[in-house]
């Protein structure tokens, strides 16, 4: 429910995030570093990557960093400090609080994507009409993982969330079908999870050559399914203290 309270909460969370050095590292430095490594070196894949392909990977990384890792850690520590309970006696409802946090995540990922887009333009990337799908895919990608970020933050101790959220992020980077592609059954299974599905959608939006739209629709379906599952699981199991 996006109402005035959720928008205020989102703006407040966004302001707090901008002042946090770790967030800046996760949302700007790491994605830009990934982008430059892929496009300017032959460290991964034996050669320099196509700019659009590298941009798709980097935006996917920033969405996962903002929508999952960063959100889970921040929420877990707010739970530990009693911030969430404190907000429970203000006019902000729980739904508005969660919506506000998700909105802040969308703003952060959008900024990260914009910065990456500017770097890509400087390096010679020329967007096509399909790039207009990026905002929609970005929101869908965030929705597919925020539920699980809240689930982790609302059920596990803050220190464990710090370790788990970072561990899952690194695991997704390596085995999530974002940077490295896998074939066979393993590849098919990986594509049923949000990182690969999001990466596929981003590739589709950024690729200038015409593509079959069925894989895009399948990936969108995967992201929608995970969005619903994550929201339901966090609504059921999240503990506010």
């Amino acid at each position, binding site marked *: 429910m996006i109402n005035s*309270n959720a928008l*205020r909460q989102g703006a*407040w969370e966004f*302001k*707090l995030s901008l*002042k*946090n050095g770790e967030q800046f590292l996760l949302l700007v430095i790491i994605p830009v570093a990934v982008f430059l490594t892929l496009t300017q070196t032959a460290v991964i894949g034996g050669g320099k990557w196509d700019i659009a392909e590298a941009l798709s990977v980097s935006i996917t990384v920033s969405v996962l960093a903002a929508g999952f890792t960063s959100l889970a850690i921040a929420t877990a*520590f*707010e739970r530990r*400090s*009693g*911030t969430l*309970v*404190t*907000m*429970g*006696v*203000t*006019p*902000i*409802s729980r739904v508005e609080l969660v919506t506000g946090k998700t909105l802040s995540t969308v703003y952060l990922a959008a900024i990260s994507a914009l910065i990456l887009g500017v770097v890509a333009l400087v390096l010679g990337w020329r967007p096509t009409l399909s790039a207009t799908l990026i905002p929609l895919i970005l929101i869908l990608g965030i929705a597919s993982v925020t539920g699980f970020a809240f689930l982790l933050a609302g059920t596990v101790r803050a220190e464990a969330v710090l370790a788990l959220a970072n561990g899952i992020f690194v695991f997704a980077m390596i085995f999530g079908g974002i940077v490295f592609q896998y074939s066979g059954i393993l590849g098919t299974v990986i594509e049923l999870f949000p990182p690969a599905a999001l990466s596929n959608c981003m590739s589709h939006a950024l690729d200038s050559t015409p593509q079959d739209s069925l894989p895009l629709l399948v990936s969108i379906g995967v992201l929608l399914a995970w969005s619903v599952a994550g929201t339901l699981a966090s609504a059921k199991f999240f503990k506010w203290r």
Partner: protein
Amino acid sequence: MSRESSAILAESLTLSYGPQRGIFDFSICVDQGITALAGNNGAGKTTLLECLSGLRSPQSGVVRIYGGDPQRDRRQVTQILGASLQDVTPYPTAKPRDLLKFLASLYPHPTAPDSLLDQFSIPPTTVIKTLSAGQVQRLKCAMALIGNPKVVLLDEPTAGLDPGARSDLYSILRGSAEGGVVMIVATHLTEDIDALADRAIVLAHGQLAADIWKTDIGTAEQLEFRARRDLPLDQLLNALPSACSAVSLSHDRYLVQSSDGIDSSIVATVASWCAQHGTEATEISIGRNTLSQEVLRNLNLMNQEIAHD
């Protein structure tokens, strides 16, 4: 005013975590002033405040804040309710002024953040996690008052405050109460009770053990002293004039009350009786009966009953 539209109403409230934990069949109605909520650790004070503020759902019973259910009518109730909780540090990476400005934006008629920062002497631009415990405590009280509430619930608001800050807080809270704000303040400190409260509710094992009004406690003169633990007060009573009564406030604190006043002969009797029992009466003070002494007397009676059981 009907009970249903009272400022704070709890009827037959039960929320249990186990046989001796939680609150059980608790009822109270508060319509004005400041009410102190006293009780031993684990008596259920925090649980009660969390039920009244809508943070916890009671298993049975009714809670109303000016007629609204804190959970069902949350939007309406949170507009007129302010609360400060124990053991929380809100938004540790934020700055007090920014946090109060954000919170003020959520209420229809907020208090100006800068005036609260001034009143509570909170550094406006210091990151919250670097504030002292006392400053965080004051910030939490300011957060409770930011929405210009009609009802305020405070859990141990003076914990960690130095005497000066405590005295300032008393003035601010009394000022709010005189302006019509109805408050419940959970506290362990007798000083808080006497400085703030018009009424005290004593909780024991989640149940109402005593409901004491300042106006009802009388003005008998009394002598309070400290001596060896667990002295036999019935023997002291035999030595004192008939207008006197004697009770223990805690294991080593005692109170002698007299409707005829406390004179030097009573002081001498107490001192010699203590000497006969191999102890010395210290920290002797003479004054009028206070709300906190009535609370302590009730707590001590309760503890004795528990010990007998």
